[in-house]
């Protein structure tokens, strides 16, 4: 059984980052934090997947889809939500361990861990922006009248 306690931490961490990034409307702040926590919940729920890259990708896609929805509900750019919601996915621990191996002089582990960090970052980046490109195409196909909050 996976523990989802860390989702609560992710929620509050996102709130803090919302303030750091100067998001002022309370409803936007809350939406950002909820989306961040939801993305992390998806990451945890996909624990059975063999590849961690896949988990990061789908978690980022979740964050992006929810951000697109929130952007239309709250009439604000998608970035307002996505910027904060993606923060819990950032592989900070991998970055630290990469450094740790560097200090310990374990070059092969350093290279391995460094590459993994890059892979995760790329998975998040592509997952997060893939959706917005898709949403842009959808809104163009729907015509110029459709409200476009990309």
């Amino acid at each position, binding site marked *: 059984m996976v523990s989802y306690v860390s989702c609560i931490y992710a929620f509050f961490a996102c709130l803090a980052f919302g*303030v750091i990034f100067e998001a002022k409307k309370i409803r936007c702040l809350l939406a950002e934090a909820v989306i961040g926590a939801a993305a992390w919940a998806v990451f945890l729920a996909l624990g059975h997947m063999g590849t961690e890259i896949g988990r990061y990708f789908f978690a980022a896609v979740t964050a992006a889809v929810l951000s697109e929805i929130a952007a239309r509900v709250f009439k604000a750019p998608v970035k307002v939500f996505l910027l904060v919601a993606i923060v819990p996915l950032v592989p900070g621990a991998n970055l630290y361990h990469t450094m740790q191996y560097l200090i310990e002089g374990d070059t092969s582990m350093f290279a391995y861990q460094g590459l993994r960090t890059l892979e995760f970052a790329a998975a998040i980046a592509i997952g997060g922006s893939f959706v917005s490109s898709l949403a842009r195409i959808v809104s163009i196909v729907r015509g110029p009248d459709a409200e476009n909050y990309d």
Partner: protein
Amino acid sequence: MGKGNKNRLNEERIFNLSCEIGHRLLRNGAEIYRVEESIEHILRSYGFSRVEAFAVPSCIIVSADYKETHLARSVRVRSFTENLEKLSRLNDLCRAICEELPDAEEAEERLLEIIRLPGYPGWAEYLACGAGAFFFTLFWGGGLLDAVVAFFCGLLVRLVKVFMRKVDSNVFFANLIAAMFLAAPPVLLSLLGAPVRQDMVIIGTLMLLVPGAAITNVARDALVGDFLTALSRLAEVLIITAAIAIGILMSISGIEALFGKF
């Protein structure tokens, strides 16, 4: 030509206004395509023709024709921050201007209102940095004591960042120094025998510095087709990451050199 006619559209002011809106968008963290499109939309709505806007993270170039007048301007952008409230309001302003076509004076007033918008008070920013580090330490599996130490490390990071901004330091050095200060307290504490897990504290606080959100911007710019912007932002991400790594490394190995292996 009705020169001096007050009802005439003041094309130069509108043109400058659109450049200023683009500038402000870019400075508050808008994507490049949003900057370019906003400028083009505003100018087209006011009847400018042959509108061209080109933006990269450090510069905006705009040119347009209005009847017989040809206007061009370039804006150098020196720094940018992520300010979601201003970004969102500038976006709204841009929409409103395109729909309502207010005169230059009113539009300028509304832009100034957004520029002057106060941010969070200083103490809230400090608290947010502390809280961010606190919850991320718990998030990555640290204990309550680790999180409390991380809270103070978060405050320290904020303090260093504010100072480095005041002395107008470059991104690399600012992040390097911040990372050094971030790593020192947990390493010293665990050296003194306090039951603090230094890796947890460092990872939690590290999240304040890691340009995690910026990597999605890079991918976004690349997918939209702004490769120049994507490359320059990617360079920024890599340099900041390297600075953080080097800072923490210097801190840990410096303490080790002074006090011996622990």
